[in-house]
């Protein structure tokens, strides 16, 4: 056990855990941030996707000791404030993307990293960026449409 310092959603937090513990379980069990989901434990399904310094990573296979001092963003920290949603979250609601909803936190985190680096993605860009996120319910058509729609919102804001 060790006392691990983390920066999660802009806040400094401490977790007393085995340094080998995957970030996923530190988020869920130690910090109570259960929006990040457990799906496979092998970085195959993307349900556990979070951002580390803006890059999407699979929290289920990332030891917590590897991300100390880096900026971790989870689904709970995606919205700029409690009142205001991220354009992707709003697009997800507008397109009624979720079915069961279990994979959607991971989908949103991957999509947010995509839009941060590529504000006007093509279908092929989306397919490449989202290839690591399985949706068992098959909401892919709406995921794609919602990403395009959020990209449009962001473009309008900048214009």
């Amino acid at each position, binding site marked *: 056990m060790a006392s691990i310092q983390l920066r999660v959603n802009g806040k400094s937090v401490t977790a007393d855990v*085995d340094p080998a513990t995957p970030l996923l379980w530190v988020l869920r069990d130690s910090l109570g941030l259960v929006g990040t989901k457990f799906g496979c*434990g*092998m970085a195959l399904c993307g349900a556990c996707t979070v951002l580390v310094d803006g890059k999407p990573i699979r929290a289920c296979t990332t030891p917590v000791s590897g991300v100390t001092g880096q900026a971790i963003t*989870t689904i709970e920290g*995606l919205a700029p404030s409690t009142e205001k*949603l991220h354009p992707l979250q709003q697009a997800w*609601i507008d397109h009624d993307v979720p079915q069961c*909803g*279990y994979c959607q936190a991971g989908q949103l985190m991957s999509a947010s990293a995509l839009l941060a680096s590529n504000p006007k993605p093509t279908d092929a860009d989306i397919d490449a960026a989202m290839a690591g996120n399985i949706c068992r319910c098959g909401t892919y058509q709406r995921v794609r449409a919602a990403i395009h729609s959020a990209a449009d919102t962001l473009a309008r804001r900048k214009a």
Partner: protein
Amino acid sequence: MNARVNDTDMTVDETLRQLIGEMESSAVSAPFRAVKLDRRSFLKLTGLAGGGLVLGFAMGSDAVAAAGGDGAFAPNAFLRIARDGSILIYSKGPEIGQGIKTAFPLIIAEELDAKWSDVKVEQAPVNPAVFGRQSAGGSRSIPDSWDQLRRAGAVARQMLIAAAAAQWKVPAGECSASDSMVTHGKRKAAYGALASKAAALPVPDAATVKLKDRKEYRLLGKWYTGVDNRAVVTGKPLFGIDQTLPGMKIAVYQRCPATGGKVRSANLDEIRQLPGVRDAFVIEGNGKTTEIMPGVAIVADTTWAAFEARKKLRVDWDESAASKDSWKDLSKRAAELAKLPTGTTTLANIGNVDEALKGAAKTVSALYTYPFVSHAPLEPQNCTAWSHDGIVEFWSPTQTADRAIETAAGALGITPDKVKIHQTRVGGGFGRRLMNDYMCEAGAIAQKVAHPVKLVWTREQDLAHDFFRAGGFHSLTGSVDAAGKLTGWRNHFITFTHDGKAPSSGADWPANQFPGLSLPNYQLSHTLLPIRTPTGPWRAPRSCSVAWVIQSFLHELAVAAGRDHRDFLLEVMGEPRILDGGLNTGRAADVIKLACEKAGWGKTLPKGHGMGLAFHFSHAGHIAEVAEVSVDENKRIRLHRVVVAGDIGPIVNMSGANNQCEGAVVDGFSTMMGLEITMENGLIEQTNFHQYPLLRIGSHPKVEVHFIQSDNPPTGVGEPALPPVAPAIANAIFAACGHRVRTLPLTKEGFTV
């Protein structure tokens, strides 16, 4: 091969067969239960904080308001209107991704004439005595609850109108309601302002209350986003696996990898010494796969500590009575049996198939094979349980909260009144969570510790311990006459049994299924191979696999006859009539024509492209689909587009209905493309998603959905859009490249995406 029949398997399989029957039965809608609730009971039931004027439950004509404090109006357990005009509606069924938490309240709100933005939705408490059916399966949620929920809303509307009419001293018949408001001429009164007056009125008889005609609907049939979507996209703790309780620990449970193995011994002392581990113990179980199989429980402080400890667990299993199933051996045996024209049991023998085949202009014979598959919901099985104060309390992502009360009570040796279940959101069902084994396990572990526990399965456990969609083998011969008409159909179905008598759960094919009642000469027989691997209902049980066989072979015969597939299929449907089992051939023809029209059936396609058609009736839904694919020289498939045309009666939420069809197409393609569960020596060989490759975003097609909305009773669409997907795609592959797909998954025949 292990041909031994196990007593426990027999009971379990019988239970599972009953479950499918129950889920699929077209029983009349759940009636209102004439349970009277006083205000205290209502508050206790619904967990409402604070006072409120609450009617005694509601459906008896003599029920009147109970005393209350804040002037709210709650004529039944489904809804409550506060004085500020806010409307709370309880959704009684499990939300498994089928959108029921939005659809149920919409039905109530429609008859209530509520403004949708006034409505807040909460999950109803699990109490089937009050709410009736509280399960999600068989696409029965909408049809079974349609009447009940409409009447719940209509009763309230009638009382609110009566309250306004009394206030204005005008006849109720001159008043109307809309947008949470009662209107008489220029006068308007908001529901909130009428709540306390309405609550003082006698409750009308729900059975005679006036319901709207479809043309009067204001809410139903439009697009609505899911009521929990904001919570989903912000990461709120909705799911079973998200539940936490003060003092809660995490449990893992190791069963024997081969079904039926028992614990001889385990290194429990060593496990108890591991970091974060609180306890480890053996659970004998009751030997039922649907309840508690023998195993070892480990209780730890965190999920990671529990998972790590499980890796170090060494169990000496007694596998003398465990499954030795081998898919290789079963397949070999089935291939031999398939050479026989008929099986050991004849299920249907209409006309004279032998004569039809002899006199045919052309005959076609084929063996179709499909594998076992897993449900693989993305949320692994889990359940939180707490044994305290003489009860066992559960927070469970179950599909069958109502049945789970009895199941858990029986498995835990307590009476049903000592079981309390909280329904959580469900991270994917697909039929897996109709069974409550993980829940019984959690309860059994909770009974041995003094604090709440959350049982969490790993993905590997989830794949290893499923109730799989059974594989199967169909040896078919069909005939067409000189005019190209389908004259005969013989199917020797080689399937599986657990009890040695009847097909395993989800592994049967009834005689009345299409085209059994549509042909002059039809023979269906089966041969049963004994297995131990658990099987069960998987999205559209049996239709999910057999529709591919039927609709592909029908296309083979159309091709042999040199006929257009659409015309051939419509000819087999014949005159509009309703067949035993519910298939309405007129509705079938209408959706077949619509799908073809929207897809541009018959148009010239680019080289390497092909279009395929399929129809299937299941779960009271008539669905036709047309797929367009291209296949390149390396057998790489691109699924470009799927057009879905359905008649499921009136649509509740157009977005939800479309979403189910879009998802069914992806699920159907995903499953036919590369999914297969195999077993050797009783062990499931696939361990995680690298060996069970669910379809990813890059392979998904454009899906277009068209509904024929009719006054026929509504049905759910979680299942019926799935079965036509695989045959439509397989027929399109044939049209594109001339390769007839007879074995699934497609990777077996050399295809890739």
